[in-house]
């Protein structure tokens, strides 16, 4: 264990530094921003102020150019430095201590950091941060729901994001963006357009953001030259000169080479993730297709071979890994307890005109993942009907090594989901999945995740007349005691009303938050690189993008299906016991109620077994959830849609629900993604896949399915072929995504007891992979208990 990875000595060294450096807080950004705001707040429009802040940071920040690096640039002072964003969430003195001392996902803070936070950052930002602004505008109902874990709120500590670069991010220099901005500016109609002034300010801000990125490029150019001149090692000297030469071209101009294209992307990544703190960082999208023209040109010119092309990819992978997700606290930490920042790369798929998208760079990316085995970037593949078997099998080969990557997306499903949501066919083909599994039209869409919804808890409150046993409060509607529902239909009608109520509370809050972000926290740099923001002269956060979607992510479909099925089957169909008896057993966590527990836990229909009784209930719940949300207007001119994914939220949502009707004990995690409840599936992986495929994936913006296998099931050529067949079959049934954990239970139990021996053990959590040792115990237990499919 712990062996160093990478294709050569350079990469191994860079990777070692990245993996072994403790994650630490870096207050340089906060300090520069605070000083700048103190001096200038009120002098400029909000968008301009935001862009100037980015420019100020890029003009003054400490630069880092590490030994051996070929791709340069860091968000903070050095690898694993985590800048903070007090304008979004200003950490308290206590936060600064807790984040440093907590055992998992910790961020080291020094005495000096704590002093600076206390004396300069907190005094200025108190009352000004978005977190305070938005929480103070929420209704009492919203607060009750939030505290009871009915839903989470994504924008409480991080900005709206979920952004993925399109082709332009690899082909357009910032001078070119500036020309486009100028052109729009020149065409503004100050006589007839009442928004002309706002547009002008937004365009000015975008223009300044372009300058900010170019300033960072120039500063690195200068640094590389200085270092080159001092360097005594001839090889490194030449590399530094080449880095400097690259920086004469990018980010200002269109890249000329494969190397420059990667460097350009990386500067945009840094700019987007430091102007604000957007969810899911920023993704290069179809990296293989974007790099391919440069690769081919350089190979033909004789200046690039596969080794060099791979080395540059591996340098980029190190860069991704150097950037931990910004520090989270409170409920936001619970819903997403990881350093992973979810930059997501989809390799494969199809081209914008619908041909097979796999090329030579696609295979290099697979080799890179295999070499690097890093949990960031989230490296995945998208498999189309046109994808060659060789590519799929190579991806399966890496996946079965058991560290969770790559996951598999269904290209045709992604396209259908996007077309169904109103995207053009070509834009849909350019799209894919980012974050965990969420579908978007890359480069052209602001698709904002707004929070998770706790579906099992909504049913739980339906059984308890809106009363929440966890918080001891009346949170839901009073629609009558469960015992008084004369039929299943009456129970269902109540469930429907509760669902509508909680979604209303959530969306009302979302609307306020979207509006606040649109007005108070624009993202000019992200707007520059997102299609149509420049021509609309409107910010990404205000509906400037070509497409604008808001997602609410559903959690616990497996658990809630089994709960509804257990009630319907035992109370109404078979009359095995009464509703009162069931409620009483639930109130006692089933202790002393063995017979009822046995019936609901072992003898009732369960989702995940290709059993229509349970699966039809799943379909009904899914449709209720979908129709309650999909199509509702958001505040950015777009619509709401749904996703079915949990990150780590299923553990948190389980923690806030007492015993449920399916026999799940109090506080245990609910099911994750669209996977069945733990141990509920007993008919093997094909039955799980069949059940999951009964959900209408194409009506969503992404679903997440985890499958766990023991190594022997996927061993050898036969195992590989069967794995590939499972994926193809699931995708033929329109499944959106599937990922595999290939590791035996014993290994996980051992890793839990001896974390020191398993420093490198990576498992698939939910739409991303993480080190097993970084997970808290309930989540570790949950992964151990996920049904292990072994049929030998």
């Amino acid at each position, binding site marked *: 264990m712990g062996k160093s990875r990478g294709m050569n000595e350079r990469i191994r060294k860079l990777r070692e530094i990245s993996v072994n450096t403790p994650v630490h807080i870096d207050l340089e950004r906060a300090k520069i921003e605070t000083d700048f705001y103190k001096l200038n707040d009120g002098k400029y429009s909000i968008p301009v102020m935001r862009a100037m802040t980015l420019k100020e940071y890029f003009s003054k920040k400490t630069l880092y150019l590490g030994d051996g690096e070929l791709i340069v640039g860091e968000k903070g002072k050095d690898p694993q430095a985590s800048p903070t964003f007090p304008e979004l969430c200003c950490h308290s003195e206590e936060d600064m201590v807790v984040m440093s001392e907590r055992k998992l996902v910790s961020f080291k803070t020094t005495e000096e950091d704590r002093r600076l936070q206390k004396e300069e950052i907190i005094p200025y930002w108190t009352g000004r941060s978005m977190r305070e602004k938005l929480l103070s505008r929420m209704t009492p109902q919203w607060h009750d729901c939030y505290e009871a874990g009915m839903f989470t709120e994504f924008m409480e500590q991080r900005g709206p994001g979920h952004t993925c670069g399109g082709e332009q991010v690899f082909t357009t220099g910032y001078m070119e963006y500036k020309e486009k901005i100028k052109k729009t500016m020149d065409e503004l109609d100050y006589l007839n357009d009442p928004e002309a002034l706002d547009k002008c300010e937004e365009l000015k801000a975008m223009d300044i953001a372009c300058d900010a990125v170019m300033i960072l490029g120039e500063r690195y150019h200068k640094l590389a030259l200085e270092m080159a001149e001092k360097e005594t090692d001839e090889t490194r000297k030449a590399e530094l000169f080449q880095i400097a030469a690259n920086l004469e071209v990018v980010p200002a101009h269109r890249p000329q080479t494969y190397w420059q294209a990667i460097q350009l992307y990386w500067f945009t990544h840094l700019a987007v993730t430091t102007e604000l703190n957007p969810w899911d960082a920023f993704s290069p999208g179809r990296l293989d297709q974007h790099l391919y023209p440069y690769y081919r040109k350089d190979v033909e010119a004789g200046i690039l071979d596969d080794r060099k092309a791979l080395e540059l990819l591996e340098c980029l992978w190190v860069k991704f890994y150097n950037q931990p997700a910004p520090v989270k606290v409170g409920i936001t930490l619970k819903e997403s307890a990881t350093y992973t920042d979810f930059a997501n790369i989809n390799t494969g798929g199809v081209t914008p005109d619908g041909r097979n998208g796999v090329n030579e760079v696609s295979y290099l990316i697979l080799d890179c993942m295999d070499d690097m085995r890093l949990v960031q970037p989230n490296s995945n593949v998208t498999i189309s009907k046109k994808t060659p078997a060789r590519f799929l099998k190579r991806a399966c080969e890496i996946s079965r090594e058991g560290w969770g990557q790559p996951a598999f997306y269904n290209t045709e499903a992604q396209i259908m989901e996007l077309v169904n949501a109103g995207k053009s066919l070509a834009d849909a083909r350019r799209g894919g999945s980012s974050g965990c599994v969420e579908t978007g039209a890359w480069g052209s869409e602001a698709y904002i995740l707004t929070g998770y919804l706790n579906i099992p808890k909504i049913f739980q409150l339906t059984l308890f007349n809106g009363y929440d046993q966890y918080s001891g409060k009346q949170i839901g509607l009073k629609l009558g005691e469960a015992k008084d529902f004369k039929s299943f239909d009456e129970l269902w009608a109540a469930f429907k009303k509760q669902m509508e109520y909680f979604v209303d509370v959530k969306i009302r809050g979302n609307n306020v938050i979207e509006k606040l972000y649109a007005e108070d926290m624009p993202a000019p740099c992200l707007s520059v690189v997102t299609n149509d923001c420049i021509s609309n002269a409107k910010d990404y956060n205000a509906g400037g993008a070509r497409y604008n979607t808001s997602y609410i992510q559903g959690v616990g479909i497996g658990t809630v299906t089994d709960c509804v099925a257990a009630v319907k089957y035992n109370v109404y169909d078979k009359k095995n016991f009464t509703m009162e008896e069931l409620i009483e057993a639930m109130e006692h966590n089933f202790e002393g109620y063995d017979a009822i527990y046995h019936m609901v836990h072992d*003898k009732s229909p369960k989702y995940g077994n290709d059993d229509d009784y349970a699966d039809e209930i799943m379909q009904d719940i899914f449709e209720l959830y979908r129709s309650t949300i999909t199509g509702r207007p958001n505040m950015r001119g777009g619509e709401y849609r749904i996703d079915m994914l949990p990150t780590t939220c299923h553990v948190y949502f389980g923690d806030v629900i007492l015993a449920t009707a399916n026999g799940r004990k109090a506080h245990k995690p609910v099911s994750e993604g669209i996977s069945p409840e733990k141990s509920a599936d007993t008919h*093997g992986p*094909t039955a799980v896949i069949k059940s999951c495929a009964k959900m209408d994936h194409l009506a969503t913006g992404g679903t997440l399915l985890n499958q766990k296998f023991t190594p022997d099931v996927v061993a050898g050529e036969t195992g590989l072929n069967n794995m590939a*067949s*499972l994926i193809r*079959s699931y995708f*033929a*049934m329109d499944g959106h995504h599937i990922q595999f954990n290939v590791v035996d239970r014993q290994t996980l139990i051992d890793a839990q007891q001896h974390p020191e021996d398993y420093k490198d053990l990576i498992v698939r959590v939910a739409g991303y992979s993480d080190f097993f040792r970084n997970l808290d115990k309930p989540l570790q237990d949950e992964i151990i208990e996920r049904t292990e499919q072994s*049929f030998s």
Partner: protein
Amino acid sequence: MCMITNIQRYSIHDGDGIRTTVFFKGCPLRCVWCHNPEAQNRGRELLCSGEKCTGCGACAAVCPQKAVSLKNGTARTDRKLCTACGACAEVCVLNLREIAGREYTVKELTAELLKDQIFYEESGGGVTFSGGEVMAMDMDFILEAAKELKRQGIPLAIDTCGYVPYERFQRILPYTDVFLYDVKVMDEGLHKKYTGVDNRLILENLVRLAHDGARICVRIPTVKEVNGNERSMKEIIAFLQEHDIHPIQINLLPYHDTGSGKYRKLDTAYKGTDLHAPDKEEMEALTALFINAGFKNTKTGG
């Protein structure tokens, strides 16, 4: 109707691709090493594990035959009285009791088998009829199911011990993609000793089936004390050569005792405790005998 103990989906070790394997109940042989003892007898049977029983008495209370009683704090079942009705299995809160054997109509069975059609088609898999002994079942039932699978385009593998009148094979042959045909040992005495029957009919059927054009995989459960030696394997090779039989594949399956726990649940003794699998090198050496004799497609394991 046919009695079935289990329908195993995502079965990946009995034939090509992703398969569903049907375990029919009832077998004319009594192989000492049998790892599906619950599939030997034709009727329904109770499987019952006693170790964790807390003596709650729920099973005794519901048994219509009064076959269950509590002794020393655990439930005991009088198998002479038990009709395997399953009432106790429904109420056992620890899930210690289950019934082996459920009757299916052809329609019910094929409906279950069609569920994974998409996986068969994608992987080149299909359905395997196993057991117990499928060829000892009601042949009208088996034929009807096989015809339906053929009509749906699903390949069928028949996993058989071969100990049935040949006329049964003739009937199923047109609907069968491949036979997984067990050959144990050439020595008649040993065969009788370890399986309960002599091997003449089995070998005759194998020859006839091969000559009638069936695609055959020969499967040899390999047990050190029975056939896990060079002489036994060479006898099998000689037999195949002498009768001009060319299996599409030969598998030497090393003995394992994973089924032994089920004997306890049936309250019967496992007689194979003294059996062993040849070690890895020995297995490879035995497999090599076939390969060297020209049966290139021979493998250790499934």
